[in-house]
């Protein structure tokens, strides 16, 4: 018997699952991946685009070139999952049947949820990062404010990395002495992870980057150029960069497969939907209280693939489950970086920043295309 394994989303998680299932299941599966653009985008590169260290064209490749030949790519927008008859409806009007469904639908940014924030900059899309870069090129000094308008958001350390890279950028342009950098954090530390926050906070202070804790962005006044928090504080800016609120994909909300914010409820170890045993979800799309990052999607993908392959072969579920593993890099500026590693049972640890980790991150960014999507890195 040949099953239809359908994967929605051609990001890091969806692409790895498609390739691993196609490789391991052989004739037992017809693997189809649906992606709305047909382009695979390396989102960790947006930060570098914003500060002029990377070109947008280096961050995307055709998805078809990253998939094994056995995987059928459908470039179309999935608009509805019908669990009653196991079909996914596409924008073109076509429907695709599934026996096993993988929702790798990611997250979306919703800046419109913050009153007045429509004109604020962000580095959460290619367009946003490119526009921010143009604004920085025209910047001649003043106050740059970086705020966070909701947790969870993609890549928890990104705002901290951004302020360090911005500090470098302004120094290189000899604008640092004429500028203030203010980082507004929703928590009483630099970002969600306490151990790494303790490591980076002295470096923020050393670079003259002002950290304000417990500042949950509530509204922006673009006329008077101020941003106000839920806690009742107001800060003025010349250039505002906001991490916008995030939600799950519209497909998930429309199909009623997620919670109030569209995050898909899954078992945190097997990644199986809590109500639908033939649906898996991974990466940003889930409600697992862990970093929304490519790293998580990467480690989860082999678990979802193993689960599906075992189901196709009629074997018992694999012993290999997702243990909450996260490993990511954090740029600390001046050519140095650290890493953050943890899982469900081990709290985060970060080594002292060094040039070595910066080069490791740069190497990973360059070699990503040849290793990660194919599932070649464990």
């Amino acid at each position, binding site marked *: 018997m040949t099953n239809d394994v359908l994967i929605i989303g051609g990001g890091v998680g969806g692409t790895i699952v498609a390739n691993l299932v196609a490789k391991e299941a052989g004739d037992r599966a017809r693997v189809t991946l649906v992606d709305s653009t047909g382009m695979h985008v390396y989102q960790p590169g947006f930060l570098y685009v914003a500060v002029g260290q990377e070109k947008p064209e280096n961050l995307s490749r055709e998805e078809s070139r990253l998939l094994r030949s056995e995987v059928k790519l459908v470039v179309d927008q999935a608009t509805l999952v019908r669990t009653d008859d196991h079909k996914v409806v596409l924008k073109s009007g076509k429907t695709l049947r599934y026996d096993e469904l993988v929702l790798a639908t990611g997250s979306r940014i919703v800046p419109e949820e913050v009153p007045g924030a429509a004109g604020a900059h962000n580095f959460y899309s290619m367009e946003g990062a490119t526009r921010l870069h143009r604004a920085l090129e025209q910047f001649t000094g003043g106050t740059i404010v970086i705020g966070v308008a909701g*947790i969870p958001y993609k890549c928890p350390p990104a705002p901290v990395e951004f302020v360090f890279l911005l500090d470098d950028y302004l120094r290189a342009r000899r604008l640092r002495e004429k500028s203030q950098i203010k980082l507004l954090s929703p928590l009483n530390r630099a970002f969600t992870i*306490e151990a790494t926050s303790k490591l980076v906070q002295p470096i923020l202070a050393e670079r003259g980057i002002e950290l304000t804790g*417990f500042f949950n962005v509530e509204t922006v006044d673009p006329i008077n150029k101020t941003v106000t928090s*839920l*806690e009742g504080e107001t800060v003025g800016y010349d250039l505002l960069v906001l991490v916008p609120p995030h939600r799950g994909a519209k497909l998930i909300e429309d199909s009623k497969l997620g919670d109030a914010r569209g995050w898909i409820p899954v078992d945190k170890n097997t990644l199986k939907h809590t109500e639908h045993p033939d649906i898996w979800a991974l990466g940003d799309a889930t409600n697992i*209280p862990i970093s929304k990052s490519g790293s998580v999607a990467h480690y989860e993908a082999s678990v979802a693939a193993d689960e599906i392959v075992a189901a196709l072969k009629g074997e018992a579920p694999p012993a290999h489950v997702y243990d909450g593993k996260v490993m990511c890099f954090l740029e600390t500026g001046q050519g140095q970086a650290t890493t953050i590693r943890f899982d469900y049972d081990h709290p985060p640890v970060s080594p002292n920043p060094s040039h070595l980790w910066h080069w490791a991150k740069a190497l990973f960014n360059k070699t990503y295309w040849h290793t990660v999507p194919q599932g070649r890195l464990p």
Partner: protein
Amino acid sequence: MNNTVQIDKTIDARGMACPGPLMNLIGAIRQGEVGQTFDVLSSDEGSKTDIPAWVAKAKHELIEVRPDAGFTHFIVRKVR
């Protein structure tokens, strides 16, 4: 329970790691009405410092912090 305080909403964040319980409280305060009282249930040690610190900064009222079996109640009133 403290019978003198009427709870409008219980936020069961037991089992969630830091900063989950605090972020759930912040979300509830954001959507709640002035005068409403929330009972946050948290088993995370970090909440013992994070939640009182945030409530003070945001100028709400921390009515009670009470240990229970393996978790803590944080009773908070939205005052503005």
